[in-house]
């Protein structure tokens, strides 16, 4: 029974981690030698980055807005509504901006990548690519990895800004704060450490978003039904890993005395 458990579960999970690490190393390394697929990378930046812009901006705006609404009620009992800008800015830049942006992009793109590569795999297009002299990792995975690495931090910055904008709209309309009060509070609250952690997290999340999608897509089995399974797994795994990674990265920054 224990042997069966080790064989069926533990070995497979360890193998999956090993394969994922190999995928990460190989796809990252391919950017440093030829052939490079720059056009494919630009296309993926358009699909992943520009394509995700509306949902990321909407998510950021309404998250900032609801954050201001919720904290306004608490702060008003202490007469500290002037801190609304600070609360929204810190929450958005440190946590909500990077995490929610990554979750939205994962929901949209990890699934998209997994289904696209999975469909290519089950219809023999990946084998055809290899037969025609192309390394599928170089052609399919590396462009998606680097496109996500470039666009996710940019999307996070925009989500942070739109979050603060949402907070500003609520602060001015509900809490009757002036625009100057809100933005001064927000600006003065932010320190280098906050911006640093808020802008380094998206790089880790980008690796998860792109490579989890690629991993499940390239390990699709069971025809078109398997493509559906890979897509679901890619979204679930990437979202869960993003949240776990966020916790441990924050813990790490605290442990090394970063803030």
């Amino acid at each position, binding site marked *: 029974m224990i042997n069966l458990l080790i064989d069926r579960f533990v070995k497979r999970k360890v193998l999956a981690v090993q394969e994922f690490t190999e995928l990460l190393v190989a796809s990252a390394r391919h950017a440093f030698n030829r052939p490079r697929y720059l056009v494919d990378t630009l296309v993926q930046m358009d699909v992943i980055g520009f394509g995700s812009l509306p949902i990321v901006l909407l998510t950021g705006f309404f998250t900032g807005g609801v954050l201001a609404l919720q904290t306004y009620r608490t702060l008003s009992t202490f007469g500290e509504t002037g801190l609304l800008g600070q609360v929204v800015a810190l929450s958005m830049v440190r946590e909500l901006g990077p995490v929610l942006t990554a979750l939205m992009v994962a929901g949209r793109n990890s699934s998209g990548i997994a289904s696209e590569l999975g*469909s*290519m795999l089950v*219809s*023999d*297009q990946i*084998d*055809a*690519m*290899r*037969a*025609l*002299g*192309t*390394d599928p990792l170089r052609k399919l995975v590396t462009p998606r990895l680097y496109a996500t690495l470039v666009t996710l931090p940019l999307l996070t910055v925009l989500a942070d800004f739109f979050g603060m904008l949402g907070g500003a709209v609520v602060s001015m309309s509900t809490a009757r704060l002036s625009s100057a009060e809100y933005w001064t509070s927000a600006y003065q609250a932010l320190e280098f450490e906050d911006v640093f952690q808020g802008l380094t997290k998206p790089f880790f999340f980008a690796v998860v978003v792109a490579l989890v999608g690629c991993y499940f897509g390239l390990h699709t089995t069971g025809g078109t039904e398997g493509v559906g399974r890979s897509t679901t797994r890619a979204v679930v795994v990437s979202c869960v890993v993003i949240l776990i990674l966020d916790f441990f990265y924050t813990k790490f920054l605290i442990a090394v005395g970063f803030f």
Partner: protein
Amino acid sequence: MNPPDAERSAASRDRSVSSTPVVELRHVSIAFEDKQVLDGVSFRVGAGETLVLLGVTGSGKSVLLKLILGLLKPDAGEVLIEGQNLVPLSEAQLYPLRQRMGIVFQEGALFDSLSVHENVAYRLREEGLKDEARIEQQVREVLRFVEMEQASEKMPAELSGGMRRRVSIARAIVSQPSIMLYDSPTAGLDPVTAHTINLLIAKLRDVQKVSSLVVTHRLADAFALANYTYSAEKQALIPANTDGGPGQRVPTQFLVLRDGATYFWGSTDELTAAQDLYLRKFLV
């Protein structure tokens, strides 16, 4: 039931195979998890010859083609392409060998996001050809060869099953490979379209002297390839001349796989003369 005696046809095979086979498998075995898919399979294909692979679904025919391309590595045995064993080679080392081969997958495996023209030009671009005029010319030539020139700008989703196979053949032959692999090229096609595909396979074999490995379920197609040759004059298949001279029969071998092992390996005549009950099922 005992497999037919492989020794029986060894002499004729040795005569038909030229000194260095273009494709040779030596005691190749491969398993996926607990399932043994191929078990000690050996065969040789000489230059310009055709090998027809027969077997029921799941007998390992498609796996065999992927092994020959180096897309899969066997657990045991050797896969030799023009004398070079590709088993110990890395993926990068395999690319020059794969340039000598073309494959037509069962459903065509065309790239959905590229037009017919770009699908066919793909290999040329990957091989580093930059001259657009030359790419255009070569693509046009092979599309004309498969009679698909008019569909050059169409997307794969707009093509019928037969058209997809023809484009797939064009994509495979654009860099003039010496070995062609066909994975059930006529599966699911109507008899007229299947005949067109057989005509193209025979045309490649007889005009360009390409060695072919054809996986098929349709024995009628296999016998058509074995007993007919392509006439450039009539642009059609004509019965092969058995008395020597022009238009003579191209050496064709048949390999029947059963439960992952070689069940029969011999010539057309040996297969048609076989009294073995399992083989007779293919011939009915």
